């Protein structure tokens, strides 16, 4: 009976253009220029990606600082079967990465080759996209330090 039922592709899409605001805009501008930008709080913490307000005090933030393009994996999950639109077309890890000079971790992909190459505490370094235009995808992914 199922074979008699009609089915059809149904695509739902939204082509939004969003304003970044001054802080995420600054972060994306940094990516385009090949730098990863955080913001420093009054307490001296560096938040990456930068937030508009201090999550502890609510104070407005605006002191931007460059952080390193390498850091430490603080948590990760292995994606054995990547889906369309994910950053890599081969198995990879989603990871929280605390960059050198940062006090928070940011989410990105790690191209480690295999799950056994992943561990919490490993060092990874950014791999920039060939063409950078002001998007989180200007970072193609991270890769284990010393791999390249």
């Amino acid at each position, binding site marked *: 009976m199922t074979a008699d039922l009609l*089915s059809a592709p149904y695509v739902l*899409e939204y082509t939004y253009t969003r304003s970044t605001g001054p802080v995420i805009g600054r972060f994306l*501008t940094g990516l385009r220029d090949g730098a990863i930008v955080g913001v420093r709080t009054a307490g001296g913490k560096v938040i990456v990606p930068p937030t508009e307000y201090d999550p502890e005090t609510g104070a407005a933030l605006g002191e931007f*600082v460059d*952080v390193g393009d390498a850091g430490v994996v603080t948590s990760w999950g292995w994606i054995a079967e990547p889906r369309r639109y994910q950053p890599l077309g081969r198995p990879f890890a989603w990871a929280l990465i605390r960059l050198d000079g940062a006090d928070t971790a940011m989410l990105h992909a790690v191209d480690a080759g295999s799950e056994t190459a992943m561990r919490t505490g490993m060092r990874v370094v950014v791999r920039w996209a060939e063409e950078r235009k002001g998007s989180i995808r200007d970072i193609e992914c991270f890769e284990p330090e010393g791999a390249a």
Partner: protein
Amino acid sequence: MSGDPITKPITKPITKIETHVRFDFTITAGKHLTSYLRGLARKQILGARCDSCAKVYVPSRGSCPTCGVPTSGEVELSDRGTVTTFCIINIPFGRMPFDPPYAAAAILLDGSDIPIFHLVRGIPVDEVRMGMRVKAAWVANDQLAPTLQSIQWFEPTGESDAPFESYADHL
């Protein structure tokens, strides 16, 4: 250097990003909607009647939303009906069927108790009105397919307008 406040000037700061959200679904029509769609490929508009309240729904979902009971059988409806409400589309957006302005309407087919939605053409948009009698403009026979697009649009029949009372309970 890492950690130092950034002092160099920024050229062409990023202020906007495109965030393209896309979901690729496959819709399975189900038994009743499949029957309705196959009917359209034969120039038939099929609904179903509730055995409890006698209301006719098109397309049928297989049950009465008011009584909560399954419908039985199918009812073939006329391809003529009455415009109950409508709107004029004036603002362009992606994938428009026609250049604006054009009219979209809720059309109560004769024999049905709920309207379907379709385009209304064949009349200047400022003359589209509640109560206007319309009929389906089908595609050519060799273009018929199991889709509501087998009806290109609805157009005026030339009959007198239906009195408000005739569709007042179906708005």
